[in-house]
């Protein structure tokens, strides 16, 4: 797995693909982090609807992100209904920022290449 922080990201002169993290770059995990970064906490049911994922699929992605310490999972109850909430960590916020910056840099290079040909 490539870490954005460890790899030569776009900010330190390496190729922008070095700034992409395998954990974060996966489309659905990028979606989870993007939504989590927009709020204090996000409920799993909202993530499932917004990303159009099955419960099992979402659960696997959440486990990967939690293991990488990019999110925290909070389980609780609202009345009698069990609810699971996701909270992005500072590490997750930094990884998401680095990923988006790397994507922007890739896009800039791609557009520059197309303009030059």
């Amino acid at each position, binding site marked *: 797995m490539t870490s954005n922080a460890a790899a030569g990201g776009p900010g330190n002169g390496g190729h922008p693909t070095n700034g992409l993290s395998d954990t974060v770059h996966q489309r659905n995990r990028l*979606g989870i982090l993007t939504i989590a970064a927009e*709020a204090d906490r996000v409920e799993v049911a909202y993530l499932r609807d*917004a990303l159009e994922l099955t419960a099992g699929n979402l659960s696997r992605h959440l486990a990967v992100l939690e293991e990488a310490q990019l999110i925290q999972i909070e389980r609780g109850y609202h009345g009698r209904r069990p609810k699971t909430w996701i909270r992005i960590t500072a590490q997750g916020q930094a990884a998401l920022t680095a990923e988006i910056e790397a994507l922007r840099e890739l896009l800039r290079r791609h557009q520059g290449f197309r303009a030059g040909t």
Partner: protein
Amino acid sequence: MSDRWSTTPNSGDAPGELLASVTALQRRTRAVRNAYWLPLLLFGLLMTAAAPLYVESVEPPALRAGPENPALTGLGGHFLERSAALGWYWLAALIGGYLLSLWWYRWHGVRVGVQTPTRPYVIAGIVGTIVGLVLPIVLRYLLLNTGAVISTGTNWLTTPLLGISNRGMIPHLVIAAGLLVLARLERSRGLMVVATVYVAAIVLVTIYFQTADFEPGDLNRHSFLLAALLPAPILLVGGGIALLNTIRGRRDQ
């Protein structure tokens, strides 16, 4: 680009498409969690409900030093006939308004599944209310009890602030502080625009009172009322538009 998050395999590898999807997700999540119509309408209504306390029974003198009221009524100003009642009203209204907004955001967050951080908003409300109570005392001390150097040097700030305080408009500033913090927490341009126009209205009223050279008789029974009520329609209209947008957005889903 569709607003829905595409999960089709091999469709999202292009950086441009991924970035566009990220932006669409951010926009959608913000729209879902935006709930600022309630604090806008609530504080607009609380301001309107305070109107009778700003009306004088007779034409006020240009500058009236009111009776000594308890420190907890400091939000009610010093020029007004019903300063004490207005002070108690605003103390209860600000505490109640912030608590109700806090409950609303918690409830809305649980309902839609996306929670807005509210701690900085509540802190803005608590600190704003405490500062609002202490500020008139500090301002009067700075203007009247300090040496000429300090008094003259801080005059540019203390005089307009004391004017706002004396007209019972410190609560308007406490509300402004909360709304500006909320706009940042919600990452809402709409709320930022409403809060900025609202602050501009308070500044305009202050400039008018600071620059007008009032003679006895220039102020009538409703002068302080008009000053205090001018910013209220901004909150009510802004809240109304935000509520309509929320209803329309829900209908479109």
